């Protein structure tokens, strides 16, 4: 179950339209390291997690990513308000405009539509949590790149907030991965799938000796 709360997680108040930046930032909606793929990755991976702690963490971070999706969408929406005909033709925004006008469509900055192929659900806690940590770093790097492309303080402020959340999520996923590994045989984390194999991590030494 989910319930909508009618507010952004962090304010987005952009005064000046900037279709060039809108086209770049839209990658964090439907691009390879965007908020939509982040949310779907965690909310789908949670079912096969081996512990309550990791199920809970993936649920809560996956939910926060939906709030980030709404924030990035608000940024793109506000950057494309009140565009002139000249604005539409400038910097290649016409290529987005012809298919979507100023609607919000999940695609990468290069125009590739969103695909579930951007994420994986391996059903193996170590594989999935390791992907999640990499995903947070890739999203953090994307926000760093966005910050290099603009000097508008109205854009920089919410983007910095989103960048910081990636760092926090990376830390929490690192703790979750360590907790899963702590429940396994420290001499061989990869001998079994902790989400699937019964007795995974228990009496590994004895089993090998038989």
């Amino acid at each position, binding site marked *: 179950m989910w319930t909508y709360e009618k507010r952004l*997680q962090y304010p987005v108040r952009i005064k000046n339209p900037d279709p060039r930046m809108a086209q770049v930032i839209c990658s964090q909606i439907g691009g390879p390291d965007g908020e939509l793929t982040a949310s779907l990755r965690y909310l789908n991976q949670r079912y096969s997690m081996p512990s309550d702690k990791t199920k809970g963490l993936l649920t809560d971070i996956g939910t926060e990513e939906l709030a980030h999706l709404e924030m990035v969408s608000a940024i793109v929406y506000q950057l494309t308000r009140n565009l002139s005909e000249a604005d539409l033709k400038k910097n290649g925004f016409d290529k987005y405009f012809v298919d979507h006008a100023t609607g919000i469509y999940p695609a990468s900055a290069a125009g590739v539509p969103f695909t579930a192929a951007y994420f994986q659900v391996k059903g193996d806690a170590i594989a999935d949590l390791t992907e999640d940590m990499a995903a947070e770093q890739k999203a953090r790097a994307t926000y760093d790149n966005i910050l290099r492309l603009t000097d508008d303080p109205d854009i920089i402020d919410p983007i910095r907030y989103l960048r910081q959340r990636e760092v926090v999520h990376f830390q929490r996923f690192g703790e979750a991965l360590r907790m899963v590994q702590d429940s396994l045989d420290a001499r061989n984390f990869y001998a079994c799938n902790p989400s699937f194999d019964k007795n995974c991590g228990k009496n590994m030494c004895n089993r090998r000796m038989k």
Partner: protein
Amino acid sequence: MKNRDELLHTIQRYDFALYDLMLYLDTHPKCRHAMQLYAKYRKQREEAVKDYVEHYGPLMALQSDTTKKWNWGQGPYPWEKEAN
């Protein structure tokens, strides 16, 4: 009485602290200090939300007015500049 923007930003600050504490408690469920902070900010948030809903309308559908006019659908919506 705070204006709408100030009150909304107050709620956003409490909610930020509460969400970050929740993620921390997800992996550190025995941390008493974090739980005390969670309880403190939750109480302050409840008061701010009560104020906000009374003067500026519902943040969630369950808080909607059912005496005069159904006000859940009323804008501005969160992605609009005016709402922030």
